[in-house]
């Protein structure tokens, strides 16, 4: 069974540019989460999808961040325009609906904003 995959693994962009991160959850997992780890800080929750619906987006830092999950499969997280403080590692995790604590994490996308 394929795990959670994320693309790209690393992205370097300049301040003001746009970046789109992609997450492919494990097939059949309705729940999809985005997290972010800024250098030196703990992993922080960004948002939670159940299928294509946003269940909780309380962790999204501001309106420069837009997450979508069309069709309830893969998800994208767009940052537009990117700022220096957006640098960090963005993780995606997925889980079947009946096991919310068994979250399977992807390898993360390391975003560097110069």
């Amino acid at each position: 069974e394929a795990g959670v995959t994320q693309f790209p693994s690393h992205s370097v962009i300049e301040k003001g540019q746009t970046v789109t991160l992609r997450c492919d959850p494990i097939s059949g997992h309705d729940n999809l989460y985005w997290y972010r780890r800024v250098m030196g800080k703990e992993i922080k929750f960004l948002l939670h999808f159940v299928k294509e619906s946003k269940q909780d987006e309380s962790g999204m830092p501001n309106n420069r961040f837009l997450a979508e999950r069309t069709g309830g499969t893969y998800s994208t997280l767009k940052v537009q325009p990117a700022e220096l403080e957006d640098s960090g590692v963005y993780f995606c995790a997925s889980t079947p609906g009946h096991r919310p604590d068994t979250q399977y994490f992807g390898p993360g996308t390391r975003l560097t904003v110069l």
Partner: protein
Amino acid sequence: QKEVEQDPGPLSVPEGAIVSLNCTYSNSAFQYFMWYRQYSRKGPELLMYTYSSGNKEDGRFTAQVDKSSKYISLFIRDSQPSDSATYLCAMRSYNNNDMRFGAGTRLTVKP
């Protein structure tokens, strides 16, 4: 004050040692407690999951939760070099999928 406090280490032990990793927390609503292991350039991997207070054992790993003290621990017996990784505690409250993570403790087990 952070909701979850975890000593970032680094922690270095010889092979075969017993390792003790700990987290404290401030939110008494937390009911579910997890320990994740993260190797370099990889995503966190769930090691142990505990509901409410008590102990849970899985092979060389034992997780303990003391809700009265708001303190959780992970013990690793007979530590191996392959246990070298960052260990993250995480927790959440009932009916809330927003997990709160500790900063992670970097562990090195030397052969």
